[in-house]
């Protein structure tokens, strides 16, 4: 069954009589400048930043899950295109850029174009995406940034252990494609006897 395309109508409701911005059912939202918010994220402690990012992802992932529920499917059983449609729509409404989903072999890679242009934006995006996917699918996931090219950032969705290993390779200067190749090489290596 094919889910309907993303409909941005009523994604946000500006209740000017009450001075509130309401989303599809998650509650009230606050419209704040992105630069101020990201500056706050850069100054916040790591746990606080993680908490903030996951809170954003929980909100977006919850909206995606509700849309799939209305369509009669789940994000796990849905196709990659359908997930890209709903998840990308919610990210765009929240102002976090355009989502694209790539598959590099067995690796799931999320690409954000035209996201917030700030040094701390990728940290927030990694926490946000991991939390959104986890909330939409019900699986515990982690995200690590592979690379940033201009307005485009690429994130690998994997387990916590793999994310930490890839993060180390990336920080050591390994190209992100080679890091993915190494990840696949370990997966395909014969188990030791």
């Amino acid at each position, binding site marked *: 069954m094919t889910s309907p395309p993303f409909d941005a109508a009523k994604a946000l409701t500006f209740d000017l009589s009450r001075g509130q911005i309401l989303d599809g059912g998650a509650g009230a939202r606050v419209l704040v400048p992105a630069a101020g918010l990201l500056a706050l994220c850069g100054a916040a402690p790591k746990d606080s930043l993680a908490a903030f990012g996951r809170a954003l992802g929980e909100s977006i992932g919850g909206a995606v899950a509700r849309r799939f529920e209305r369509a009669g499917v789940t994000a796990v059983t849905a196709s990659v295109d359908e997930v890209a449609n709903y998840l990308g729509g919610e990210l765009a409404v929240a102002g976090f850029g355009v989502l694209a989903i790539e598959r590099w072999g067995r690796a799931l890679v999320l690409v954000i174009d035209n996201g917030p242009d700030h040094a701390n934006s990728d940290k927030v995006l990694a926490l946000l995406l991991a939390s959104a996917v986890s909330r939409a699918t019900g699986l515990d996931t982690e995200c690590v940034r592979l690379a940033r090219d201009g307005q485009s950032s690429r994130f690998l969705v994997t387990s916590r*252990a793999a994310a930490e290993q890839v993060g180390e390779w990336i920080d050591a200067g390994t190209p992100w494609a080679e890091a993915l190749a190494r990840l696949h090489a370990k997966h395909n290596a014969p188990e030791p006897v």
Partner: protein
Amino acid sequence: MTERKLSILRTLLARVQERTSRSRPAEAAPSTQAARAEPAAQLNALTQLEDEVTGEAVPPSAPRMREAAIDALSEDNLATQKHQVVPDVDARTIADAEELDEEMDIAITVSDSDDAEVGEMAAESASFSDAPPSDEGAPGGLVLENETPLPGIAGEAPPAPARDELSWPPAAPSRPPPPVEIPAAAAPSFEPSPAFEPPRTEALAAAPAFEASPAGPPFIAPSEPFAPASERPPAFEAPTSAFREVVPAAEPLPSLADVTPEIHRAPVLRGPVGIFIEQSRIFSPNSFGELLEASLGLGRDA
């Protein structure tokens, strides 16, 4: 109809007789006798025809009358050529008639018969009609013009073969003869003069090529001797072909060997891409959950 013609002829003869009795001298110059020989035969035939129709005896004054008529016909023969050269004959005839006070001008048209007999008479009458009166002042002018209709017979055309039966010398042509077209192949040695211009048809034939680009080279007529028609096209095609060479041709399309694909790919991806393609061939998820599980599985092995 016959009575009308007879009356006309009687009137004609009476007027000629009256005129000759008044103005013509008795003797004619010997040099004119020879010139009168041929008109005399016609006049004799006319008078003989009149005698046969009327059945009357020839009056004693007939020879003199005939001589006067012969003189008139001789003068008319000369005036016929002038008549054909000068178009305004009637005006000149009237003017000459006014100058000759003592001379007699008679204009009779005979052209109203259907039967053969009257047609022959009309033909002979027409021989007189082509002779306008003499403008030299010669006495005895007799004019029979079929252009002047008589009352009662107006509007009827004279018989057509009248002119063909004339025995007079051929008249001078009133217009220059039509130009004789010389075959093109018969003039190969024609040398163009300095003011020679090519035929206009050839210039028009080459005109569209020069209208296509005003900036093209000016047209230059071929300087070599004018060739026959069969050889003209090459002489005029030369400037046209030279003009076409001036027009910049479109840039030739590249051949298939020159077209090479451009692949924009980061050098760091050339090796791993092969691996990922192989992995993509082995693994083909049917849902987002399968892809997510596979990606999470990479981390477990690590």
